């Protein structure tokens, strides 16, 4: 079988244009992805960040050919995911959210056969499996089945499996979901090592800190749309530059809060029932003013929080709602 010619720049690892996915169902179905445009450069560590149900996994599913788009286009290393799925699969590695290891095979065989699926000879595949098990600290588990492994071990084995054939793009769908903090940090080290070696990585996560710690660039996704994308400093410097101060009163927000809107150093003031949210780049003293406004009106404060600029404030700024809602 001859390789089709890639259709995009060799520097572009992933490109999507107006990507849509609607799952069939009543009332027009479920619109999981609604026009996502992305471009990931070769060698880049790119993150898709969003809450559960944002459309991240569906997007990764389309890029790895397992989910069929209902609109738009997507290509990986220049190959269209719909027209050339086999060419795409030859060039990618995928670590799913779930444990999709072959339960009928042990750890070594999982890697051995993955290598053989991708055209390695039996001898090369076995050598490659030994090499990866050793490098990822799984040599002692080589004869263990996936059922006998901890969550962290299984995830590391899945990463090994995805790397057996040296993929050009590695997709990781919520790789640290459900792992304990120590295992998560260990896995971050693994991913940083891969990135340092030039591996292109596309990662989905709903952990803000994970995206901040690992990714060169991040696309913030919600309701199947990209809300903003860029480097973490870029995002913080634009949409999320403000500190967000949230105060919840015992009763409706007092009228005195409204005068904050007139100040030039206050970006935005959002009032919703008993809660007020103030976006500002000069937060000093604002919380005190909000408490004082309540006291002047005889209204107590039941809760107060101040969020420094972060991806969480980016999300708050872009959507007007808490990230984990």
């Amino acid at each position, binding site marked *: 079988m001859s390789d089709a010619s890639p259709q995009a720049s060799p520097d572009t690892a992933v490109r999507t244009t107006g990507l849509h996915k609607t799952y069939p169902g009543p009332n027009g179905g479920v619109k999981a992805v609604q026009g996502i445009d992305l471009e990931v450069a070769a060698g880049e560590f790119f993150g898709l960040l969003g809450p559960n149900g944002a459309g991240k996994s569906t997007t990764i599913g389309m890029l790895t050919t397992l989910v069929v788009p209902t609109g738009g286009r997507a290509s990986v290393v220049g190959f269209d995911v719909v027209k050339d799925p086999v060419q795409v699969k030859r060039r990618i590695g995928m670590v799913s959210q779930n444990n999709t290891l072959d339960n009928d095979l042990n750890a070594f065989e999982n890697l051995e056969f993955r290598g*053989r699926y991708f055209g390695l000879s039996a001898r090369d595949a076995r050598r490659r499996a030994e090499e990866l098990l050793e490098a990822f600290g799984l040599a002692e588990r080589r004869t263990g089945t996936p059922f006998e492994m901890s969550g962290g071990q299984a995830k590391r084995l899945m990463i090994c499996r995805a790397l057996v054939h040296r993929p050009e793009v590695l997709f990781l769908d919520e790789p640290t979901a459900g792992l304990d903090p120590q295992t998560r940090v260990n896995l971050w080290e693994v991913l940083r090592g891969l990135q340092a*070696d030039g591996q292109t990585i596309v990662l989905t996560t709903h952990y803000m800190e994970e995206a901040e710690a690992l990714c060169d660039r991040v696309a913030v996704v919600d309701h199947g749309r990209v809300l903003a994308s860029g480097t973490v400093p870029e995002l913080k410097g634009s949409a999320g530059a403000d500190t967000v101060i949230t105060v919840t009163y015992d009763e409706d927000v007092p009228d005195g809060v409204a005068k904050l809107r007139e100040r030039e150093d206050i970006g935005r003031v959002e009032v919703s029932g008993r809660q007020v949210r103030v976006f500002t780049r000069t937060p000093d003293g604002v919380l005190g003013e909000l408490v004082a406004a309540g006291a002047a009106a005889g209204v107590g404060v039941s809760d107060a929080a101040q969020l420094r600029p972060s991806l969480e404030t980016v999300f708050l700024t872009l959507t007007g709602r808490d990230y984990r809602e």
Partner: protein
Amino acid sequence: MTATTQAAAAAGAAPAARPTLARTFWAMMAREVRVLRKSAISSFARVIVQPVLFVFVFAYVLPKVGSAGAMFGGGGGRGPSFSTILVPGLVGSSIVTQGIMAVIFPLVMELTWQRSITDRALAPLPVPLLGVQKIVAAALQAFLAGLLVFPAVLFIHASGQGPSIHIHNWPLLVLVMVVGSLLSAAGGLLLGTVMNPQKMQMLFALILLPMSMLGCVYYPWAAMDHVRWLQIVTLLNPMVYVNEGLRAALTPQIEHMPFWAYGSVLVLGTAALAWAGTRTFTKRVLT
């Protein structure tokens, strides 16, 4: 373990992968053989117990206790021995049931819990071809199941009750066994992708049991001349054609369907079920 060593292992020393569709397909077949080898004892027991018990009771115990059931067509030595009737029937039923189960049971796990089918769906193979691979792998198991049953049905019998087997046409025997294995595996793929996994226990009650009881395992199709409606209804049962084909190959002296009848159904049925099965399989794998 350090990030550096991991990165080196991930990218540096790996031999070049040269995937082709054929290499990937055969690697998957090698995986099936490895799994089969690991579960050889349980697979062997699953395949062999039912036919062994059957011939033991009908070809050994019943003749010993003087039951008329030992002879087909009236006993007294006028008809073929029941053990002769059973040889193609039990070989055929083993092929069909094993072919169906060899696809369905792993597939139910792969398509539901954790969707482990993803492991192979990401291999560089078109998804419909992955479905074909599942058919071929299950057909291999079905073929082996048929072979395993032969010694039992040939050698377990009471004195004087041995089956009368005359294989004049070996290619026909091989053809029927191979196509019968593919037919049942293709049917298994279709069933496994259209049935609700939570109701898979119904497979035995509503499909495998009626298929076996009315699949001309214990009597030739021609013997149902006197129950014409049933004879016609059983034409819907694919096992009938496998057993009649094996009857033609193994016991040609016993009346059986003509080649054009069982042969065309086996070949066309395999093609139709494989087409439908790979379509439904693809729909289940790709969302």
